[in-house]
């Protein structure tokens, strides 16, 4: 209690010097929490977007479907199982037919995946309602990244070539009726979306599909062995792995920032112990043990982080809350890197993140303060009193 009282008295008595250190440390708190919150928000947004744009509550996959092997696409389709037909009728299940194809924008050849989806679906956020065109035309929608890589824009016509169920090549002209914006690369990059019935006709596969996107979790619904149910968790496992890999990078960034702020505390402590030699000698002359002086200096350092947390809370809480609500605008150029990133990221500041950061910074500050303070234990008080220690 005495050490706490003296440490607080020393800190408050030091005035501006203390508050400068505290403000700098509070910046570190806020930046660490902000960065981590931004990364967590990015992760959560990426996952949510995957669910909203592609995964929904789950999917049935044709047994031969392998999204990582486009050469199997021509064989991975089958009739929608009878058990699910009522759900297909009420559009709580959306059949999607998938095949390989090629387009020729401005004479260039561009391989892509053709996906047929019902324009009236509402299970995923694709703007399929835009899949409408004039008589005899085949409408198509593409994502912004696809439009950028092919040079296509809304209203353009482009030749599309594909192989039907017999392996025969065929080609037609499609019209780009909409260019949509999404953060989900698998719904955008190298993809063109057509009306399901048009694609079925083109491929001579009436009533067939490659995957079935479900609006509900149907893990308990058994269907023919030709269709395998993939629940949401399974479908998100890839992005979970990416998030985990990215999290380790986040931890490294977090660690570097923590290290930088701790270097400042360490430096302050070393300087403080050097500068306050006479004071240390006087403490000992007045009856403190060296251990008590070490504890006092360590506590002073640790209290910096407590004050920094309080000061940081004063301006940080409203600032972070505002950002959490309004989001952070990401420069448009960031999409050029091929990163699945929305134009506006909404940081997520969980209680665990804030309390965890405060606790870790407090513990690390205490350790970093203790480290140079140990030097006091080796000081000769008579030399310290004269300020002679180098």
């Amino acid at each position, binding site marked *: 209690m005495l050490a706490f009282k003296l440490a607080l*008295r020393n800190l408050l008595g030091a005035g501006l010097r203390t508050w400068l250190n505290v403000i700098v440390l509070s910046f570190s708190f806020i930046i660490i929490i902000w960065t981590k919150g931004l990364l967590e928000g990015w992760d959560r947004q990426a996952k949510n977007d995957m669910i909203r744009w592609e995964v929904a509550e789950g999917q049935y996959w044709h047994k031969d479907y392998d999204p990582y092997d486009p050469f199997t696409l021509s064989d991975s389709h089958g009739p929608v199982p009878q058990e699910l037909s009522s759900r297909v009728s009420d559009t709580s299940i959306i059949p999607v037919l998938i095949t390989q194809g090629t387009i020729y924008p401005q004479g260039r050849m561009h391989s892509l995946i053709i996906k047929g989806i019902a324009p009236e679906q509402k299970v995923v956020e694709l703007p399929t309602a835009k899949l409408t065109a004039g008589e005899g035309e085949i409408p198509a929608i593409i994502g912004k990244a696809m439009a950028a890589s092919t040079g296509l824009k809304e209203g353009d016509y482009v030749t599309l070539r594909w192989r039907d169920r017999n392996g025969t090549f065929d080609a037609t002209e499609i019209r780009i009726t909409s260019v949509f914006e999404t953060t989900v690369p698998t719904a955008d990059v190298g993809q063109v979306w057509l009306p399901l019935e048009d694609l079925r006709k083109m491929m001579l596969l009436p009533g067939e599909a490659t995957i079935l996107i479900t609006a509900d979790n149907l893990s308990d619904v058994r269907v023919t062995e030709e269709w395998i149910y993939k629940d949401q968790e399974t479908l998100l496992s890839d992005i979970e792995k990416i998030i985990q890999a990215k999290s380790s990078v986040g931890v490294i960034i977090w660690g570097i920032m923590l290290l930088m702020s701790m270097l400042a505390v360490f430096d302050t402590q070393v300087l403080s112990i050097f500068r306050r030699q006479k004071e240390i000698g006087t403490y000992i*002359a007045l*009856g403190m043990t060296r251990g008590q002086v070490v504890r006092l200096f360590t506590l002073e350092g640790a209290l910096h982080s407590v004050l920094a947390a309080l000061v940081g809370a004063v301006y940080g809480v409203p600032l972070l809350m505002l950002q959490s609500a309004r989001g952070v605008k990401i420069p448009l150029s960031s999409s050029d890197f091929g990163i699945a990133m929305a134009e506006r990221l909404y940081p997520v500041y969980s209680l665990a993140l804030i309390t965890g950061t405060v606790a870790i910074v407090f513990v690390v500050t205490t350790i970093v303060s203790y480290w140079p303070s140990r030097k006091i234990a080796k000081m000769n*008080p008579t030399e310290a*009193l004269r300020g002679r220690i180098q």
Partner: protein
Amino acid sequence: MDNNIISIEGLKKHFPMGSGKFTALNGINLSFGKGEFAGIIGPSGSGKTTLLNIIGSLDVPSEGKAVILGQSVGNLSPAASASLRKSQLGFIFQTYNLFQVYTVYENVEFPLLLQGIEASKRRQMVLDALEWVGLTDKIKSRPAQLSGGESQRVAIARAMVKRPAIVLADEPTANLDAANSHHILQTMENLNRELHTTFIFATHDDKVIGYVRRKIYLSDGKVAKDEIIEKN
């Protein structure tokens, strides 16, 4: 002198110097009684500060014995040594050594905080000590706002506030002008007479030498002369 509160026998203190050693004190035999007002006098390097540090249990003898208030300095644990300083010894330094971030009040209060004295008693003791040195109007000032003489008076109040048995003053007037020197020496002399606190000065200042009632001259680490001055 009622009885001996400091007893030094065959005291030697060596410091390592290069491959050899430097002997700062070379066989000191001294004793001090309660209420003495004594000066250890000598030029720089004569060993007076080293002797004062050993009496103050800030340093230990290399050889011989220094018994302070019944406790042998060389045999004390760090905690016992700190406890002796905390309760029985007061220090006054040449450069005052006040805590710059504390007010005058807080500086004087510090030794009482270490002793765990309760707040109301503490306050009264601090105000008493500041009254002794005539600084009750400066309790909220910080050391940077005080003159040298005022700073040294705060240091005296800090040394005296816990009513120690012994006060050790190392060149207390070295940074003061004549008027301030006489002022603080009178203050200390008054406290010595009123409270019977033993004062031991390490000094080569004639002003201090003029006040002390016992003069112990050190030369090359030895007591060259020890004389008691009779004063009314």
